[in-house]
């Protein structure tokens, strides 16, 4: 087997339980995002665009869809004779087997995969972030600093810092302190969950970690603190582009609104850094004759006969006459019948919403599961104040 300078291990086994119904049927990396994509498309497209040609994708939670979506990686041009994309599920060996207990344990279980390529460095990625990043620059920085590990970091708002692994740096950019999800953060420089390890260092620390029965086998909680305690050469690589951990419903909705907003600095139209995805073939979408669509993303196969504002509409969605969709994310093949009003909501795939229904509204996000069927005049979520004919309003109120 040809040796590689750097290969990537993409952690895609997480449940993402805070995304609630969005991950009821699929793993978090397979959650649809941004009209055309799945969350994992961003990391895989970054690999392809950064010139990384070997990616191991570690799957565990509800992998059926994810495995078939990834296939041999041809969607991202990551299918190669040597290397390419390999799905790495948990497995049994002669001494039995176990589930991936944590992020570090998952990679430890697949050291054989890594050794095939004898890479100098291993890039650890997670499949649940929305960002565009050139990993080759991170790798160059890592080599320049001759580091044992380099962690990509980004400044986050102080009030959110407690959700992340945060660190303090020396003037040279060396990591001097690291706290994983601290209650009182001392820094707002957050780990993006993107690490480059020297392969020999990675191997020795993962082996040590696997032998430690007290460890939770997690990179952030165990491996990185231990490396810091043992005085390894650890650098932080500052990233200043757009990055969002879409781990909660609120952050998922925010990131969806960000792609509609030119000021958010996340351009999916950039042909120099294309985000690849696989979608079933659909015809161009149709916009009806008496329709207003603005500040919106509309995908193939949609048929729009109502009003759409500040919303992301996935492929194959039908929006009936007189309906209004505002501040919402409507996933594939949802059917919205006539005179429906939807505001600040996320509607799961294949759901049908009957005539005259009112979904969402107010400042909270209303979530609707996949494959639901709502009768006409259903009311769901926060009560709306809407301007409608009095007659229709009282009908709705009567339900």
């Amino acid at each position, binding site marked *: 087997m040809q040796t590689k300078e750097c290969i990537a291990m993409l952690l895609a086994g997480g449940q993402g339980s805070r995304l609630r119904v969005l991950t009821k049927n699929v793993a978090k990396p397979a959650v649809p995002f941004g009209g*055309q994509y799945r969350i994992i498309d961003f990391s895989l497209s970054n690999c392809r665009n950064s010139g990384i040609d070997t990616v191991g994708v570690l799957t565990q939670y509800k992998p059926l869809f994810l495995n078939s979506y990834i296939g041999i990686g041809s969607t991202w041009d990551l299918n190669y004779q040597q290397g390419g994309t390999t799905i790495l599920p948990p497995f049994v060996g002669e001494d039995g087997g176990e589930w991936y207990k944590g992020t570090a344990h998952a990679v430890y279980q697949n050291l054989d995969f890594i050794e095939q390529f004898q890479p100098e460095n291993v890039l650890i990625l997670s499949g649940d972030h929305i960002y565009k990043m050139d990993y080759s620059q991170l790798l160059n920085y890592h080599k320049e600093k001759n580091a044992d590990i380099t962690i990509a970091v980004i400044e986050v708002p102080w009030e959110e810092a407690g959700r992340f692994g945060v660190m303090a740096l020396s003037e040279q950019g060396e990591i001097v302190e690291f706290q994983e999800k601290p209650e009182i953060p001392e820094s707002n420089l957050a780990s993006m969950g993107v690490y480059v390890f020297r392969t020999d260092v990675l191997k020795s620390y993962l082996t040590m970690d696997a032998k430690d029965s007290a460890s939770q086998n997690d990179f952030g909680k165990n491996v990185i603190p231990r490396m810091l305690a043992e005085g390894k050469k650890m650098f932080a690589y500052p990233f200043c582009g757009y990055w969002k951990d879409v781990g909660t419903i609120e952050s998922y909705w925010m990131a969806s609104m960000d792609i509609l907003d030119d000021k958010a600095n996340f351009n*999916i139209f950039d042909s120099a850094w294309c985000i*690849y995805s696989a979608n079933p*073939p659909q*015809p*161009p979408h149709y916009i009806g004759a008496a329709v207003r*669509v*603005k*500040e919106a993303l*509309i995908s193939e196969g949609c048929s729009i006969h109502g009003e759409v504002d500040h919303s992301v509409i996935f492929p194959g969605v039908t929006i009936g006459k007189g309906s209004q969709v505002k501040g919402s994310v409507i996933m594939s093949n949802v059917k919205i019948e006539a005179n429906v009003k939807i505001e600040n909501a996320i509607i799961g795939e294949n759901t049908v919403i009957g005539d005259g229904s009112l979904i969402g509204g107010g400042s909270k996000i209303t979530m609707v599961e996949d494959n639901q069927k709502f009768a006409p005049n259903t009311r769901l979520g926060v009560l709306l104040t809407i301007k409608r004919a009095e007659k229709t309003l009282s009908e709705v109120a009567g339900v």
Partner: protein
Amino acid sequence: MTMKNVMGIIHHHKNEQALQEITRHRCMASVPYGGNYRLIDFTLSNMVNSGICNVAVIADFNIRSLIEHLGRGKDWGLDKKNDGLFILPAASTQAANCRKVDLEDLFRNVDYLERSKEKYVVLSGSNIISSLDYKKVLRFHEEKGADVTLIYQSVNTPHPPKRVHSEAVLLELDSDGRVTELLVGKPGWQSYNLATDMYIFEKSLLMRILRECLRYQQWDFIGDVLCKQTRGLKIYAYPYEGYLAIINSIPDYYYYHMDLLEPGIWRKLFYSCGPVYTKLKDGPSTKYYGTADVRNALVANGCMISGRVENSVLFRGVRIAKGAWVKNSIIMSEGDIGEDTLLDGVILDKNVCVQRGGKLTGDNKKPLVIGKRLVV
């Protein structure tokens, strides 16, 4: 009924420059159509959706874009170790040819025909927009015990006809659906049976016909074979009732695009008979900005729209700036429509840039065509 026993052949258009400027750099089969597609995609998808796994495409002239589009047939599921997609050369390189269906093209590839194991052959033109299930045609063919089955559509034109088929093949049928006469010419405008340039027959019959053609050096399947043998051969006609468009001219091209703006037709064509496959392209969904005002339009992915669009078809990656007004037009991929422009009744080929303040107008009888990559 399995379609494992059927192979498909898509023959090339005998007037490869029928669409003038649009066919200057590409053959008819690869003319962009319907926002996402090339003309050949519809026939190819019908074959694949019907279960045909061995398809030959005969290509003659200006074939670069066709070959680039088809590749090894991956996007149609035809990249197979056995069978799959074959691109075959035509017999002559003369662009103009009076044969309607040139059997010499098939004869030139007789080795491929002999090597193929299928019993039946579906032969189709490359300029037909339809959603046809060949399984039904094969069943009809077998039930009738036909030698050749033609696919036709019964046309009842309104008064006056919206679109007259020029140079059509018209059929006279008996009550059983057997063809009693084939006529080549311009139809009168009430009702007629229009042959669609799609056929099914046994390969053994094709081989026999090819040997006859070689002997007499008469190679036109319509004029030299079918027209002369309405008695000798059992020729039946299968009635196709779905959406049909045959593209032979710029007005056809324009007219049938405007057809796609009927939601009923859009649904019938794209959702009645399996997906229409095409070469996959990557790109985001289409973005509508605050100033966008789009009504009655078919819009492909990757467009960025800030202006006004009415009764138009936008292909992939088209940009419509603020203050632009596009109506009754067809804009192919990557068109860039600048601020304060007006476009009415125009067809823009790929990568055309209309600069700020530009005005372009044509009309539906004679749409204005702007060639590829021009800046106006």
